[in-house]
Structure formats: structure tokens, C-alpha cells
């Protein structure tokens, strides 16, 4: 029941908030803080009891902390039995994401303490969002997955649309529209998959169980002969449609333009959640769904996916370079860094895929820290123009120190988490003939990243102090706590990566083997 508890505790807290009178603003904050702290404790418990030798992926029995109940089960005559299950489980791909969600979720709550407009509505939305995100990472039934996926959209829409900046409505609608179109594509394919797979192949037609279980769809012997998705070209089409759905979320070039808008308008904590956790949903979808369910398509399109990864890296970095708004710069930097995930996954090497998952985790922490850092100065100066600052290091040395730390983490300084991820991705993609050329080009991105961060730091923090900012206080205790926690996590993940990679290794290896072997086996499939 621990996974259900993990998902629903924030939602229960949200229900509790409904009962609390509107003017007790502090109570909202503390309840939210408590809920998200409990989440973190539960995740710690998961890590403690996690058996890292078990792989998960396409083997239902090697998932851990599994909860599986029939939810809906109806007989549909000659179509067989239609089944929806409440199916949760954790493996080496989802556990890092849970750690990330719990940690960033908690930081997000602390950061939300400064929100003072409609506090009640804000925290209710926030907690629902937290539940939905957790749900996505542990759902193993497509129906459930989709439910949580969509559930995420609503609170996010309101959080940007109500608590955002001046152009919040435009940004919220853009966000909503993009993701919604993506979801529709996804739904289309989910339904196609549903009718093409059964959990008991070989049974009589009336007895065949059509299930939304992802795990069952990852085993190609469950494919119903003659069904829509048993034809290779349909599988490729389905793959592309669903890929598009996830690509919007990553966001992959050229579907990235919603991200800078959403970030610029979103309040700081929501930017933190958006960059820290939400973007990872897209890439998580790739590893959880696309690779194991469509292995032969993944192999077929691998180079193209890697290419888009590299385009993300370079295009995002070049676009970041030219930004004058600090938040927009970091948003484009996110686009760039998420490209490494695509590149690593495309390489299908152990190092590459491990690096990709590591990057999801690492970028979650680093981007959260970056957006918090931007929030600090925005709260004081009420603007984010890079050229409008100058010399802040003198006035706010601790702030300058942590910001520089975050910048260096983002530009891939060794001993910080980003380096581990990017080096592994680079190494993995370099070792595979398919992606070798892409790997070499991608290094340019890391160079550009160094340049724009160092220039930005120079413009904002060094030189003579701009007298306009002479009275600014350094970090408050709350701000310092948030930045220090994230900074410590980034450092630990950088100097002791085996803590996390050991949790992932079995699953990553199994995933790779699955994709590669199914890819060769699919030669006979038609």
C-alpha cells in the first residue's frame, strides 16, 4: 500500500485543505509541507527496501512494492474480456524519478511560502499536481498512467494561469494546448495498443483478456496476430504519434516554444516543478513506454531521435546564448540539457541509457536550483533583465556563491551531477557507431553552455555594484535552506554517483537487452 500512500497523501491533504477556512494561510502552508515531507520519508523507505538486483521493465514479477487490483473487468463477447487494473510498481527507472519528485516537490512547497494570493486554491492545486506526478511515475497500467497524466494538466494550467506573470493566460493556454494535443495522440495509440494485445495469447477469443497493463504490452508474444499493431508500418506510425505526445513534454525541438513562455509567466515554485519534474514525464514516457513497447521502432528511428537530441542541445544552447531575460535563458538551457536524454536513449548503450536517466534526475535538481536562484533576485528586483544588474556578488555573496554553483553544475563541471550524466551520455553515444558522429557534434553544446553561463554570471554578479541594488539583503534562511539542500544533493550525486546508478543498473541493462533482442526478433514479425 506504500505506493498508494505515496500518491494519495498529497491529495488527501488537498481534501483537508478544502475544510480549512480561507484566512488561515499559514495552516495551508504547513499542511502542504507536512504532506510533502511524508512523501519524502516514504520515498526514503522505498530506497531502503529496494532490491537493486531486480530489473522490472517487462517482468511483472520483478517490479517491487507492487499493488495490483482489478478495477474494471467486463466481458465483451467475441472481443474477449476488457480489463483495467489498478497496477502500481517500482523499478530502477521509476525510483530515481520518485526521489526527484519527492525532493523537488518539497522544495517547491517551501518556495511557495511567499505566495499570498488565493493561498488555499494555490496549495490545493499544488498538492493535486504532486499526486498526479507521483502517479505517473508508478502507474503500470496505461489507463491509470493516462489518468494521472491528464490530471497533472489541470492544476498546472491553473497554477500558471492564475498565479503567473502578466501574460499568464496566453502562456497557460499555450501550455495546455500543446500538452493536450500530445495527450490526444497518446490516447489514440493507447487504445490501439489495448486492442492489439492480450494477456493470455492462445486462449479462445471470448476468453482473451485485453488489458491496459503496460507490462503485458512489453512482451511481444502477447501481440494478437492480425490486430492493427501487428503490422510493422502501423507500429511505426503508432510509435511516431505517441513519440510526438511525449516529445512535446520534453520538450523536443521544434515543439519547445511553449516552455519559455510557460516558464517566464509561471511563479517561481511552479517553474521549479515544471523544469524539475514535469519535463521528465516526457522522457520517462520514452523509457517506460516507447522503448520496451516499440523496441523495433525505437531501433529503426534511433538515429533520428539522437539527431533531434543533438539539435535540442545545440539549438537550445544557441538560443539561450542570446537571451536577455534570465528565466528565459534557463528555460532554453533546459531545452538544451534535455537533448542529452534523447541522445543517450538513442545510443542504446548501457552507459548512454544510464546517463540519460541520470540526466533526468540531475537536470531535475539543477534546473530546480537555477529557477530558485532566479526567483531570489526577481523577488527583490522585480525584473530579470540580465543587463540590468551588475556587481551583485559584493552585495549578496552567499547568493552569488550558490548561483555560481548552480551555473557550474549546469555547465557540467565534474564532481557535480550534471557532469556524470553528460559524460555517460557522451561516452555511450560515442561508443555506438550509430550515434558516434552525433556525440562529437554534441560536445559543442557543452562548450556553448559554458560560455553563456559565464557571461551571464559576469553581467549579473561581477564588476562594480549597480547602486540601485545597494540595499538588497542576502539570502533569507528559507532561501538558503532550499538552495543548500539542492546544492548538497547535486554535489552528492556528482561525487558518489554509484549511490544512484546502482539502483538503476539492472533495469537499464534489462531495458537495453529487451530493445536490442526484440529488434532483431522483429525481423520475423509482420
Amino acid at each position, binding site marked *: 500500500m506504500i505506493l498508494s500512500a505515496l500518491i494519495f497523501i498529497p491529495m488527501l491533504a488537498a481534501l483537508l485543505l478544502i475544510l480549512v477556512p480561507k484566512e488561515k494561510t499559514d495552516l495551508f502552508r504547513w499542511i502542504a509541507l507536512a504532506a510533502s515531507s511524508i512523501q519524502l520519508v516514504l520515498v526514503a523507505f522505498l530506497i531502503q527496501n529496494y532490491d537493486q538486483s531486480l530489473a522490472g521493465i517487462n517482468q511483472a514479477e520483478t517490479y517491487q512494492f507492487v499493488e495490483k487490483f482489478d478495477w474494471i473487468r467486463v466481458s465483451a463477447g467475441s472481443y474477449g474480456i476488457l480489463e483495467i487494473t489498478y497496477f502500481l510498481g517500482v523499478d530502477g527507472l521509476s525510483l530515481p524519478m520518485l526521489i526527484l519528485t519527492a525532493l523537488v516537490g518539497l522544495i517547491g512547497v517551501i518556495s511557495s511560502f511567499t505566495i499570498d494570493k488565493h493561498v488555499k486554491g494555490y496549495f490545493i492545486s499544488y498538492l493535486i499536481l504532486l499526486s498526479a506526478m507521483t502517479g505517473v511515475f508508478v502507474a503500470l497500467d496505461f489507463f491509470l498512467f493516462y489518468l494521472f497524466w491528464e490530471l497533472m494538466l489541470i492544476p498546472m494550467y491553473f497554477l500558471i494561469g492564475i498565479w503567473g506573470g502578466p501574460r499568464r493566460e496566453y502562456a497557460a493556454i*499555450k501550455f495546455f*494546448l500543446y500538452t493536450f494535443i500530445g495527450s490526444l495522440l497518446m490516447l489514440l495509440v493507447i487504445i490501439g495498443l489495448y486492442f492489439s494485445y492480450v494477456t493470455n495469447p492462445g486462449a479462445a477469443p471470448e476468453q482473451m483478456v485485453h488489458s491496459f497493463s503496460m507490462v503485458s504490452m512489453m512482451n511481444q508474444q502477447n501481440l494478437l496476430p492480425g490486430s492493427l499493431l501487428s503490422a510493422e508500418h502501423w507500429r511505426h506510425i503508432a510509435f511516431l504519434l505517441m513519440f510526438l505526445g511525449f516529445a512535446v513534454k520534453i520538450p523536443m525541438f521544434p515543439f519547445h516554444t511553449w516552455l519559455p513562455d510557460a516558464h517566464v509567466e509561471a511563479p517561481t515554485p511552479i517553474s521549479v516543478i515544471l523544469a524539475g519534474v514535469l519535463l521528465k514525464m516526457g522522457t520517462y514516457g520514452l523509457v517506460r513506454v516507447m522503448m520496451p513497447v516499440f523496441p523495433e521502432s525505437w531501433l529503426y528511428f534511433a538515429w533520428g531521435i539522437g539527431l533531434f537530441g543533438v539539435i535540442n542541445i545545440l539549438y537550445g544552447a544557441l538560443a539561450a546564448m542570446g537571451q536577455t531575460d534570465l528565466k528565459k535563458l534557463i528555460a532554453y538551457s533546459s531545452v538544451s540539457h534535455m537533448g542529452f536524454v534523447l541522445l543517450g536513449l538513442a545510443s542504446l548503450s548501457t552507459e548512454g541509457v544510464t546517463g540519460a536517466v541520470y540526466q533526468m534526475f540531475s537536470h531535475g535538481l539543477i534546473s530546480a536550483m537555477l529557477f530558485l536562484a532566479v526567483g531570489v533576485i526577481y523577488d527583490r528586483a522585480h525584473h530579470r533583465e540580465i543587463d540590468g544588474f551588475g556587481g551583485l556578488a559584493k552585495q549578496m555573496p552567499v547568493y552569488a556563491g550558490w548561483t555560481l554553483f548552480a551555473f557550474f553544475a549546469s555547465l557540467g563541471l565534474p564532481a557535480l551531477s550534471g557532469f556524470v550524466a553528460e559524460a555517460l551520455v557522451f561516452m555511450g553515444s560515442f*561508443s555506438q557507431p550509430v550515434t558516434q558522429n552525433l556525440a562529437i557534434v554534441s560536445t559543442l553544446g557543452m562548450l556553448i553552455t559554458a560560455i553563456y553561463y559565464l557571461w551571464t554570471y559576469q553581467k549579473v554578479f561581477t*564588476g562594480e555594484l549597480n547602486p540601485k541594488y545597494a540595499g538588497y539583503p542576502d539570502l533569507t534562511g528559507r532561501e538558503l535552506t532550499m538552495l543548500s539542500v539542492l546544492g548538497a544533493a547535486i554535489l552528492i550525486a556528482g561525487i558518489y*554517483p554509484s549511490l544512484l546508478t546502482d539502483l538503476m543498473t539492472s533495469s537499464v541493462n534489462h531495458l537495453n537487452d529487451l530493445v536490442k533482442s526484440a529488434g532483431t526478433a522483429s525481423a520475423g514479425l509482420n
Partner: protein
Amino acid sequence: MTLDLFSYVILLPVAGFLVNGLLGLFNLAGWRSEARKPVVGWLASAAILVPFLILLQIFIGMAAQDKGFVTLYNWLTIETLQVNISYQVDSLSVLMGLMVTGIGFLIHVYSIGYMKHDPGFWRFFVYLNLFIFSMLNLIFADNLMLLFLGWEGVGLCSYLLIGFWYQHAFANDAAIKAFVMNRIGDFAFLIGMFLLFTSAGSLNFDAINQSVGALDPTTLFLAGLFLFIGATGKSAQIPLYTWLPDAMAGPTPVSALIHAATMVTAGVYMVARLSPLFSASPELMVVIAVIGGLTAFLAATIGLFQNDIKKVLAYSTVSQLGYMFLAAGVGAFPVAIFHVFTHAFFKACLFLGSGSVIHAMHEEQDIRNMGGLRKYLPQTYLTFFIATLALAGFPLTAGFFSKDEILFRTFASGNYLLWGLALFSALLTAVYMMRLTSLTFYGRERFDAGHKHPHESPALMTLPLWVLAAGALTVGFLGLPGVVSHSNWITEWLSPAVITAEVHATHTTEWILIGLGSVIALTGLFAGWKLYTTGLETVTRLKSGLSGLYNLVYNKYFVDELYDRLVVGPYTRLSESVLAKIENRFFYPVFGWTSSAVSGFADTLRYIQTGYTPVYLTLFIIGVIGLISLILFI
């Protein structure tokens, strides 16, 4: 050999970093106050002194062929990729470690005096400790990945320390330039590292060096070449050397420690650590030797006409690093390390001496505004002069032995052209160093003595100078030439860790070369002294007579301008055009109009509906029904 205490060598500097860093950052216990400065400084110094003593104890108790490993923990294991935080203690790493901690300690002590009035005192020592920590990781790493962690760590400290006075724009520009140019090299390094990993199957030095024979020559050449490009960044060689002279914007102790004695020699160290790999590719060795020789020459010519005391020394460093690579390129890896070792003493001494001068002259760095300082700064002068002799290769000083060995080995390897170039550069070295000494310390005072009041530095600063000067006089005897003594201690000491090419030359040849080297050094020193004391008019005449050539060299061959024109400009324009043209004029409008359209639609809709949720749900349900029917009925 007992390594029980070895982990403290690594841990103490980082402990010093943490204690001073945390207390200073939050200004606890008055850590930033004037009264705490001695505590901060001596704490940081002790964090380096104790590792030095531990290494000394290990050194005394070890034989040259001893080799031990200290593993702290497993950094990462992914299939065959296994990286441990593991340190390799052998003759090479111990020697380098002693040098880094020993000279590092002296420079820490010197800095207590030098940085006394700086408000960022604590920050300075925090960075210095972090630097030593990174440098020790680099040196003792038993695998390429850990070496790279240290490699980047020293790069970070270099960035932080060059830009230490962050209020000055030029300091930041220089810091960024250093970091970015190093990054270019670092990527080559990474590519080389991964090439090696994919072909040799390991990142451990021992495993790589042993697998050299099994690698195909092209891979070997490429992997080595990429690693070497990495080294040209860190060790300021052509084409990535232009950051080092700018790096002089940092405080002078930093220039001495990082940009002369230790960090910049990391490239040479890396090449020596992988000497079996590099020497297995003759083509690669040629590349290294040529780059080294050309850099030695190019930087020496630029050094001739610089007027900033630190810039002269910076170009001299670039030039001497060139000599080290030349040695490596002709297969004399132990000699390269020997020169690293001797160079650390006299170059650190020179930089610290220049710091003492700058201190005395109230931040004046232009030697045209100095002169006659000998009588004001007698100790600084004397140590500076000794180090000058050592750098110029005056007989029996440290630089004499190591540089002559390089010249001899270059000659013996048959690269006569490179030998000629190196010999000529040695002449230039003696000239520009004596020019520097003469313009600074001799002749008449070209400043207002009544107003400036130059004064000798305190003992805290002069003592390290004397220790280093003593080293500059004596450490050369560790590597006596073959004609004098059968046992060359340093070569023998390093032989288990570093390979060396066979030497085919007669004793007569060696004697002739030593004689030639001595004559060259003496000639250069004399010319430098004569021209820049009494012969200043001749210099002026020469300059105007050869004004074209002079301008070219004076402007450093316009290499910075060339890079600006060829790389920086196009790059900036590219990023501007990507943003302005592609992103803003294409992707934003194309993908934005849909949202605007919906937004407009929603604005109308708002009058009918109170919220968006019903719309959303309706859409959702219609969608689901539509899709199910689509799939069921096609």
C-alpha cells in the same frame, strides 16, 4: 612503503577548504574579520603542510619501484566501466605531490603576507586549498576519469582565482577566457579518453599502458592526439596558449602557484603518466615535439618585448612548458618531469619576487616605470636574480641541468631543426630574463622615489623567496648529465613509472653541447644586461630600424585578434542570428499563432462558460468516444 596516512594527503586540503569556506561564507566566529586573518591563513597553510610531511615520510620510506594504491570508494560501475576514487602512489606521483604541496605551502605562507590587506582574504585561502585538493587528485589518480575530475577542478580554481578581484572587468574577461579555452581542450581530452576506453576497455593507467601493444596505430594516434590537444589547453601550448598571459590578472601568488609552478604542468604530467601510450605512436611524438618546440620559440620572442613584469614571466612560462613538451616529444619523458620540477622552483621564485616588487611599487607592473629597485628591495632582488640565472641556464643552476638535458636529448634524437630552434630560444630566454632584471632592478629610478617609497617585503614573504631561490640553485643536481655522473638520480627514480627513449650520442657530443648551452646562456645574459642598462639607445635604434618586425612581435603576432576575427565574431553572430531570425521570426510565430487563435477563441468563450474545466472534459469525452469508435469500426 606504508600508506596508512595517505588518505589525509587528499582529505586535509578539502577539510581546510570546508572549514574556512563555511565559516567565511556565513561569517561565523568573525571569520571575515581582520583579527581572524592569521588564523584563516595558517589553518589553510597547515592543511597543505601536513600532507607535505606525510608525503615526505612516504618518500623517505619508499624505493623507486614501489607502487601502492589507496582506494576510497567506487565512484561508478556500469558494466565494464569501473571508476574508483583510487590513488596511485608511485615514484612519479610522489615526486609531483611533494612539489605541489611543498611549493604550495610556501606560496600559502607568502600569501598570508601578500593578501594581508585584501577584504577577500578568507575567500582566497579557500580557493587555494580547493586548488591543492584538485591538483592532488589529478596527480595521484590511478585512472583517467579521476585525473579529469582533478583536471577540471584545477580549471575551476583557476577561473575563480583569475577572477578573484571580480570588481575589475578585465579580471573576469581573463577568467572566462581561461575557462573557455581550457574547455575546448577538455572536450578533446574527453574524446581521447572515450576513444581509449572503447578500444582499450579500461580507464586505468596501468591497464591502458599495458594494452598499448594491442591497439591499432590509428586509434592510438587519434586517442593520444586528442589527449594532447587537451594538454595544449591546460598547459598553454599552441594553439590554445593565449589565455595564460591574460590569466596574470589574478593575484600574483596565484600566478606563481597555478599559472607557473603546478597547474599548467598538468599536461606534461599527463603525457608522462601515459608515456608508453604516447611513445608507441611515432607520428604523435613528432606532433608533440614540434608543438613544444614552436611554442618555446614563439613565446620566447613575445617575451622579449613585453613591458608588464608578470606578462614577461607568463610568456616565459609558456615557453618553458614548450621545452617540457619538446622533451616528451623526443621520448625523454623523465627529463620533461625534471624540467617541470626545476621550473617550479625558479618560476615560483620569480613570480613571488615580482609580487614583492608590485607590492613595493603600489600595484605598479610596468617595468618602464621601475628601475634601480635593487637598493630598496635587496632580498627580493637577490632571489630574483638567482632565479633569473637558473631560468637562463647559467652553469650549475637548476635550469642549466634540466634545459641542457632537453637540448641534448633533442639533438641526440636527430631532430636537429628543433634542436636549433630550442637553442635559439634558450638565447632569447637569457636575453629577456636579463632585460627584465635590468629594467626592474638596475639603472636609474624611473619613478618618483620621494612619492612611492618602495620598501622590502616582510619576512613572511621573503622567507619563501629564499627557500625557492635555494631550490633554484640546487635541485638541478638531482639530474646530473651522463658525462659527469653515471647515476642520474631523477631519471632512475622515475624509471619504474615513466619510460624513456634510448640515447645514442658520444660523450664528446654531450660535452660540446653542454659547452654550447653554457656559452649561449652567458651570451644572452650579458647581452640582456648590456642592452638594457647602458645600451638603451641601441635598443631604441634597433626597434625603429626593424619597426615592422617589432610591431608584429610586440602585438603578439596578432593571434588574439585573429581568434576574435575567426572564431569569436562568427560565433556571436551565429547565436544572435539563431535567436533573432529563426527562433523569434519563425518558430515563435508559427507555433504561437495556434495558441493566440485559441486564446482569442477562449476569450469569446469566456462569456458563455465560467471556467475551462467543462470544455476540457467535454473535449476529453468526445475525444475518447471518437477514438474508440474509430478503432473499433475501421
